[in-house]
């Protein structure tokens, strides 16, 4: 399976950097997320994860490291976490890390809510 690499771009809209490595299972979304068409951007990302869970089936270490995102992006983050939980429930090995700027309580709370309401383990890492 091919890796998924999307370069981060900061112009009128903000594209986060996406690096999904199919060999190592290391996946990360980094930077800022505010897109012209949010769903268009995140659909292939969810598709990649689904294919990984069906074909590769090795451990995933997924890291969110975002400093800003709009609410439509956060809807897609929830979809990603739900997809990872589905993989975990089917027997896949999944680690989720959520990094956030130390003074940003709103970004921290987002991960706490996924953790509490989806009942999934997330390492919340302030920096």
């Amino acid at each position, binding site marked *: 399976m091919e890796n998924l690499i999307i370069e981060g771009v900061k112009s009128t809209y903000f594209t986060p950097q996406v690096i999904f490595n199919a060999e190592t299972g290391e996946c990360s979304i980094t930077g800022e997320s505010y897109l012209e068409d*949010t769903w268009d951007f995140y659909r292939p990302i969810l598709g990649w994860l689904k294919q990984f869970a069906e074909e590769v089936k090795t451990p995933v270490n997924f890291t969110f490291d975002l400093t800003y995102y*709009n609410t439509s992006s956060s*809807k897609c983050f929830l979809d990603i976490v739900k997809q990872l939980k589905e993989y975990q429930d089917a027997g896949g090995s999944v680690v989720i890390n959520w990094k956030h700027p130390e*003074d940003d309580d709103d970004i921290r709370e987002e991960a706490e809510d996924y953790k509490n*309401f989806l009942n999934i383990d997330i390492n919340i890492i302030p920096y």
Partner: protein
Amino acid sequence: MSSKKFSFFHHYLSLSDEDVIISYKGPMSDVIIHEISKEIQAKFAQDPKSGKKIYSIFMELAQNIFFYSSESTTLGGNTYRIGSIVLSQESDNYVLTAGNIVDKKWIPVLWDKCEMINSMDREALRKLKFEQKDTGEMSTENSKGAGIGLIQIALTSAQPISIEFRDINDNKSFFALSVSVKKNL
């Protein structure tokens, strides 16, 4: 009927009642949103925690106008939705106010939503935000995160939202939403 000519003088006077930091009224293009957001980041470099909240709330308010204002203009083949955002300050708070024209059918929806948001504590709001994201569908009308956007604005500001409607005609109303962020968080 009085002259239709826009009174810039009255506009200037009414804005002068407030301590205005940023004020914009017009087509809410993606470029304008980006430029104002950069201005906010620059202006709040000395108050970063409050500044980031203002930045996030501004982005949600601007995107609401960008997607949902029912007033628009066409320039160079592109259609832009119109609205206004004013950022001002009081002694302890910064205040963000956004206004735009909406179809009247949205009034009860927006009114009930704000009443509900204001009646809930933080834990309940977080739960509601999660549930709406969990069940919401993307890419249908009024589902680009608008409902969740209001909840997020309330969570980010950590203060009540106030809203106002004024009838324009039988079908349209002016809708204004105002929210505060404490200084020096």
